[in-house]
């Protein structure tokens, strides 16, 4: 009484055959997203690094709390004239020095090193040349770096996505213009362009038509980094979307009279969603590194605002007397970027284990 199928594939038949007395179970399909989630769930390494990233973000978000309750000082509050009590002794936050009449001198200007808990929570990682608390600046700087990194990644991805969708859907001259636009930005040495824009806009801000951004605003490095990295995502996306355009389901949509917006966002976009997601994760890492490089060179976040990049630059000047000043933001940077890279890898493996789409470098 077995059907042909059953005899050919006994195991499958056994799996699908209803148990005695039970109604036939419906077969539920699993969406690719669910399958991806299951794969990701099993990738403990990726998940633990995601947790690390979330931990870092959480610490930075606690910056105002740390500043108020533990360190009792703001990130930009100088304290050159002040003193602290270290293990009961009162010492200046930044050492005093002076020049004697006979040509000798006492070296000054050296800030206190990492106190850990010796000063009651103040100057945990030491002070900088203005007497500011490095630990507080580290946390606020992290907030700034993460904000700029994530913000610019969002803007960059959105813009690249929309432009590539338009280029792929309309083709022809729209594609030509957008491709040339990508080419021009791509032809620029990325770092040079970013430094040039950063320096030029740091002077007077951006006042073009309706846009009015002050010179010290964080929008400036954010917009610059988003702008210079648009082709980074845009080009590979455009390639993928172009091949999608030729597929039958898109043709079908066009034949049905669907509007361009519907085709772009409902038909084409979901098919590149996993690529976009992976790119997005990886580009946050890239942007954080770019912002650090820009701020290190003085073309990104301007003093006195802290960012991990300009903290490293400040720390370099004090590397002999307080190596932790430069090491702390550097290690924070490496850990943040590493966790994003590892998680991004895991995400890519989960979404498409045989994925061959690579981020153009």
């Amino acid at each position, binding site marked *: 009484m077995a059907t042909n199928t059953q005899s050919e594939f006994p195991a499958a038949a056994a799996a699908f055959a209803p148990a005695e007395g039970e109604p036939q179970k419906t077969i539920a399909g699993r969406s690719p997203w669910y399958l991806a989630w299951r794969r990701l769930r099993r990738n403990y390494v990726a998940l633990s690094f995601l947790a690390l990233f979330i931990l870092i973000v959480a610490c930075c978000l606690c910056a105002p709390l740390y500043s108020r309750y533990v360190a009792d000082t703001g990130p*930009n509050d100088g304290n050159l004239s002040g003193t602290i009590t270290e293990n009961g002794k009162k010492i200046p936050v930044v*050492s005093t020095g002076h020049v004697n009449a006979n040509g000798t001198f006492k070296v000054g*200007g050296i800030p206190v090193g990492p106190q850990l808990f010796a000063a009651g929570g103040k100057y945990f990682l030491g002070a900088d040349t*203005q007497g500011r608390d490095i630990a507080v600046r580290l946390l606020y700087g992290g907030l700034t770096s993460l904000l700029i990194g994530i913000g610019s990644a969002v803007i960059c991805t959105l813009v690249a996505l929309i432009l590539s969708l338009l280029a792929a859907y309309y083709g022809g001259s729209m594609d030509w213009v957008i491709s040339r636009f990508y080419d021009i930005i791509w032809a620029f040495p990325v770092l040079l362009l970013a430094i040039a824009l950063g320096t030029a806009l740091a002077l007077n801000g951006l006042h073009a038509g309706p846009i009015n951004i002050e010179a010290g605003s964080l929008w400036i490095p954010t917009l610059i980094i988003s702008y210079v990295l648009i082709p980074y995502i845009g080009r590979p996306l455009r390639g993928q979307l172009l091949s999608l355009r030729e597929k039958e389901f898109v043709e079908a949509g066009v034949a049905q009279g669907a509007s361009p917006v519907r085709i772009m966002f409902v038909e084409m976009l979901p098919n590149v969603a996993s690529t976009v997601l992976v790119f997005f994760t990886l580009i946050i890492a890239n942007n954080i590194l770019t912002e650090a490089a820009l701020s290190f060179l003085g073309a990104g976040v*301007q003093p006195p605002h802290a960012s991990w990049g300009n903290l490293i630059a400040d720390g370099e*000047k004090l590397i*002999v007397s307080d190596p932790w000043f430069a090491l702390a933001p550097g290690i924070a940077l490496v850990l943040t970027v590493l966790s994003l890279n590892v998680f991004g890898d895991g995400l890519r493996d989960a979404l498409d284990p045989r994925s061959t789409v690579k981020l153009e470098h």
Partner: protein
Amino acid sequence: MSRRSALRTAVLLVLAAALAVTVAACGSSKSKSSGTTSTTSAGGQKSFANFRVTWDAPDYLDPGLSYTVAGWQIMWNVYEGLLGYKHAAGAEGATLIPYLAEKLPTITNGGKTYKFKLRPNLKYSSGKAVKASDFACTIERDFKMDSPGVGFFGNIVGVGGSNGFATTKKGHIKGIVTDDSAGTITINFTQPESDYQNILATQFAAFVPCGTKASDQSTKGIGKDAATGPYMITAYTPSRSFTIVRNPHYNGQIPDIPAGNPDKLTGQIITDQTAAMETVLQGHSDYDFIPIPNDRLQNIQSQHSDQLKIYTSANTYYYFLNTRTPPFDKLQVRQAVNYAIDRNTALPKIFGGLARPAQNILPPTYPQYEKLSPYSYNLTKAKQLVSASGDKGTKVTVWADSTPPSSDLGQYLAGQLSKIGFNANVKTLSHQVYFTTIGNQSTKAQVGFTDWYQDYPSPIDWFDVLFNGNRITQTHNNNVGNSDFPEVNNLIEKLKKEPISPSVNKQWAHVDELLVQKYAAAAPYANRTSTDFFSPQMDLSCYINHVLYQFDFSTICMK
């Protein structure tokens, strides 16, 4: 390839790399050799063969154009003018002595006519004879090149006015009369001023032969052809290196300039403070011109204190307060700033301890200096003044230069202004454009960093240039604070014309007091001290630091 062979290859490569590194490291020890030992020549001088120096980048090595200490410190032993300074340390170094001229000038006509006679048989390093008409050519060349120093010569007859040489650049400057056969030079000024001899001692008035092109000749051999001092510049690659050797045609033609100890100077130009210091520490150089970074000072002082010299040149660091932009148009606010900065404890820290607190505009090296200390560090009083002025909460932008320590100084001020009730932020600019930006009226810079190093030892170079309301300009304004108080202006104009005397000196000191105490025209806070760092081979008992030109390389000797 198989796993094993891959690993084997990798190990071999690593070994090869390690070998290469070791070979290179052994090769490097060769460079730790010092210059040759010194010998005593006739006259008891200790001459030696090669003085290796690490220098900052001069702007030019052309006497008509250079306006930096890095340039002048090299050139004052190369290009000479009618007058110059004694090669001595301390106040004695401010004494003017005749260089190419036989004696100090004869001054007639109520201080408006200066007459010089050249020494006989003077030669340039090319062998060419020095002529009296070369002086006129030199000054005219400065104007033709739009030299930064032309402002010094504005009072010579025939320069100013719509038909003057400064505008037309044609013909000759009427006020300079020279006679080559007699070797005389007569200069006529439109009005008397007490700093003309100092001006004639600047590098802008150092002789170059007639016919020298009116453009930057730093790399075109001017140092080799037009040197009148004991040394000449035989090679110069901008931002990289220079070479200086003895001038073969010098023959002691200026008796009061020492013949110089080093036979040769090999200079490398390095702008990074740490890298410059390392050249001396690693034995590649005998002298580091650039200040040692604060962070390394401790080590250098404890381990190499006998190789380190500190000196305080005539400079003042101050915050300018723009009297034309609110809130600094109010005296109370300007006073508040002066009470809000901690000159004695906090500000010297930014210099690594290498600064002396100051409340005067003039540095202490001047005979016209009388110490002022009307302001103490008092945040409460500052806050009261700000509240009383009604400007509490105003947005204030503090301007700073990006080169250290200016950026830190700007951030400090912004922090203090925030503490006394302002909404302060900092704007940092590249050094290349900083002074032209704050010196431009359209920037409306309210307050910020500035400093002044003397051009020559005269109070005119300070008060007239920096605080005379009559000399305010639209662009390139050195009176950045737009200080314009009639009482002060009139006093400056009067004192400018009078020759130096104790009573005139006291009146200059009074100008200082008016500006600082009565009008709070600026907020001076420090005189900066700098470092000279030498290799262990150098004998520092011969070290001379000149009041204007700082370390004198001609007098240093080797052990």
